[in-house]
């Protein structure tokens, strides 16, 4: 009986373990193995060791059951090369680069076909592509430009949501970089090739590439996906405004926005740059070394004065918040009540964020509305923290009263002991 239990246990460890590993291996090889038996293209190309370069067995097309003939045509049931690769049977072989968008578009532009795989699928990629710079140049016969396979690969295609995909957000800049950072390749187009370098150092690049924050914009979020175009002069603000909605709205209502248009200046990028957008800080406002205001404004003019005022308002609030934070940490460490301080600080910080957004109105009064409330909250937090620290020290006085009682008890017991011992002495 004991051996029976032991047997079950052994089989659990020794039997099921390898079995599970086996089933995982099966999963890995199914796509190609399954095809070898039914698809002569795969069978021969494996035998001849002529599988396409970069083929991934979990390629989306293989996974949904499309094999070679699904794109390249021909008859996959025949092991006779002449029959299998007969143009009369639809064989198209490797398409000419100029034909690639249409080649992929055969299926991807057909809503009825694509709906089988995903009911809400988009089918306008090809159409959009021909509106892009890439598409337009391709139509003119330029085969250096990117076509579908340059960005998505030919035989290792994954959905954009799959981290293995060449167009997964964190991979997009690297995919675009392949061509756009190659000075020799881009020489004939006479456009800069330092975009990736600048982008990688920018606040967006750092967030996406370093922190892997896929919410941060990659190249396609500003330039578009299939309809890739450089943002036009009038649309730059709109592009930034897709994410920075409030900042754009405040800016558009200012006098400066009108002036910018007249002077042919480009909204956001005049202060923040474009590919190399640095992390913002309060010193960008004001008249200090890092200020962007003094690029246009001179001492004495209205804008210069506003910059000084706004900078001071932000400085007052951040200083108050920092002081409150230091005190809050002290309160927290000594184990006093810091919850209300935390709420006040959160509120003050919220006001600071508002104020920083309102900076885009370039109106000190509007900024002050926010910083004033923030300052009040920060000061309340400081006051509360100081009270908590005071209370912490006040407790010591209470000890004197508490100890008075025990000390009296000690003295009383001592007197009693002496009394007992002197009685015992006199008795003996």
């Amino acid at each position, binding site marked *: 009986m004991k051996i029976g239990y032991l047997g079950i246990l052994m089989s659990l460890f020794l039997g099921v373990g390898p079995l599970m590993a086996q089933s995982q291996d099966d999963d890995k090889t199914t796509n190609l193995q399954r095809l070898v038996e039914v698809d002569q293209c795969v069978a021969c190309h494996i035998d001849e060791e002529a599988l396409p370069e970069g083929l991934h067995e979990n390629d989306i097309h293989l996974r949904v059951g499309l094999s070679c003939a699904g794109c390249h045509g021909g008859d996959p049931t025949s092991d006779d090369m002449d029959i299998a690769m007969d143009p009369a049977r639809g064989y198209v072989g490797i398409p000419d680069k100029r034909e690639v968008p249409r080649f992929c578009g055969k299926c991807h532009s057909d809503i009825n076909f694509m709906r089988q795989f995903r009911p809400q699928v988009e089918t306008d990629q090809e159409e959009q592509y021909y509106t892009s710079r890439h598409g337009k140049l391709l139509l003119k016969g330029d085969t250096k430009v990117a076509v579908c396979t340059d960005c998505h690969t030919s035989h290792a295609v994954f959905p954009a949501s799959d981290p293995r995909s060449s167009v997964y957000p964190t991979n997009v800049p690297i995919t675009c970089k392949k061509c756009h950072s190659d000075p020799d390749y881009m020489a004939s187009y006479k456009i800069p090739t330092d975009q990736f370098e600048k982008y990688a150092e920018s606040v967006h690049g750092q967030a996406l590439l370093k922190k892997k924050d896929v919410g941060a914009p990659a190249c396609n979020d500003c330039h578009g996906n299939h309809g890739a175009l450089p943002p036009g002069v009038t649309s730059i603000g709109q592009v930034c405004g897709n994410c920075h909605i409030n900042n754009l709205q405040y800016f558009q209502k200012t006098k400066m926005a009108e002036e910018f248009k007249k002077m042919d200046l480009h909204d956001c990028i005049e202060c923040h740059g474009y590919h190399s957008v640095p992390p913002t800080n309060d010193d960008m406002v004001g008249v200090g070394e890092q200020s962007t205001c003094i690029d246009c404004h001179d001492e004495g003019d209205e804008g210069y004065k506003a910059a000084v005022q706004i900078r001071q308002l932000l400085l007052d609030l951040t200083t108050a918040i920092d002081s409150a934070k230091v005190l809050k940490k002290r309160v927290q460490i*000594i184990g006093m009540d810091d919850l209300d301080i935390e709420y006040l600080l959160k509120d003050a910080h919220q006001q600071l964020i508002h104020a920083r957004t309102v900076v885009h109105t370039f109106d000190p009064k509007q900024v002050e509305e926010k910083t004033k409330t923030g300052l009040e909250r920060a000061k309340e937090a400081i006051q509360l923290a100081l009270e908590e620290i005071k209370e912490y020290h006040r407790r010591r006085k209470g000890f004197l009263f508490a100890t008075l009682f025990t000390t009296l008890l000690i003295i009383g*017991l001592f007197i009693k002991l002496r009394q007992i011992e002197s009685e015992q002495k006199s008795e003996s």
Partner: protein
Amino acid sequence: MKRNIFKKVYDWLDERYDLTPLIEFGKHKKVPVHEHTIWYYMGGVTLFLFLIQAFTGILLSMYYQPGPDSSYESLRFLLTKVRFGWLIRSIHSWSANLMIFFAFVHMFSTFFTRAYKKPRELTWVSGFILLSLALAFGFSGYLLPWNELAFFATKVGTEIVGAVPIVGPIIMKVLRGGSDVTGATIYRFYAIHITLLPAIFMLVLALHLVFVQKHGMSEPEHLANLPESKKKYIPFFPNFLLRDLILWLIVFDILVFLAVYYPWELGLKADPFAPAPAGIRPEWYFMFMFQTLKLLPGHVLFIEGEVLGILLFMVGGLAWMLVPFWALKERPGRRIQPMEFIGVAVLVYIGVMTILGYVL
């Protein structure tokens, strides 16, 4: 009338449980008076501090909620919103440290007065087990606030346990409730701290006290050999007990002073993903072991330095527990006896390593 009721109750109990011999024992119990009498009080002080631990621990458990999202928060609530919660927690923490301090004093005074000798061998062994349990109380309780220092100190502490050859990795995994210090570790440490350890502690403590009562106070050898007429005694009740009480109250005053003037801080909440902050060190009573392990070279001959250190501590601890069974004989005429030399060496070693731990 009142006396009559007490007498009736006493008679009722006496008839059934034969209390009179116990009362007689208490009445005739004597405590020797000599230059080392002061050390007799150390065990009592340790016991008193243990009672404070039990009492404040029960109060704390009414608010404490173990868990990675509730340990720190519930303690913060206790400290900030519950009236005198801060005081109870601070007393619990200070009392724990004082209890271990007095337990050490009690143990070394017993060692130097050679009170462990026949027939008190098991009193010594049970006392040593109680000290080990007190250290386990300290280690398990340290993690419960789930603050930065506690988290990393427990991580390092359990890693040291994991370095014990053969059984170490298993013990570490069982202690942690997994391969790392997580919420599961808090639940385990909490269960160990408030159920397992108190149960074992109470049992060993009861044995220890029974042994002490059975043999009475140990007298120094030069006094034991004197004729009864030349010995000095005081009655246990009320003389010794009153002195005990006075000392307990003084210790209580000191304890409250420490708790109020130097309240135990809560620290910042533990963040398992944050890098370890500077100055991670164990509680002072583990410092000499921690420092020794730090100073040992990576390898000593064929064995890892850390493993060697742990093995030496295990052998040393075992030898210390079994002192009554191997104690070296006294050599007449020698100013310093061999066991005194060993005791001083151990004290100096613990002292120097502890100081180095804080200085280096």
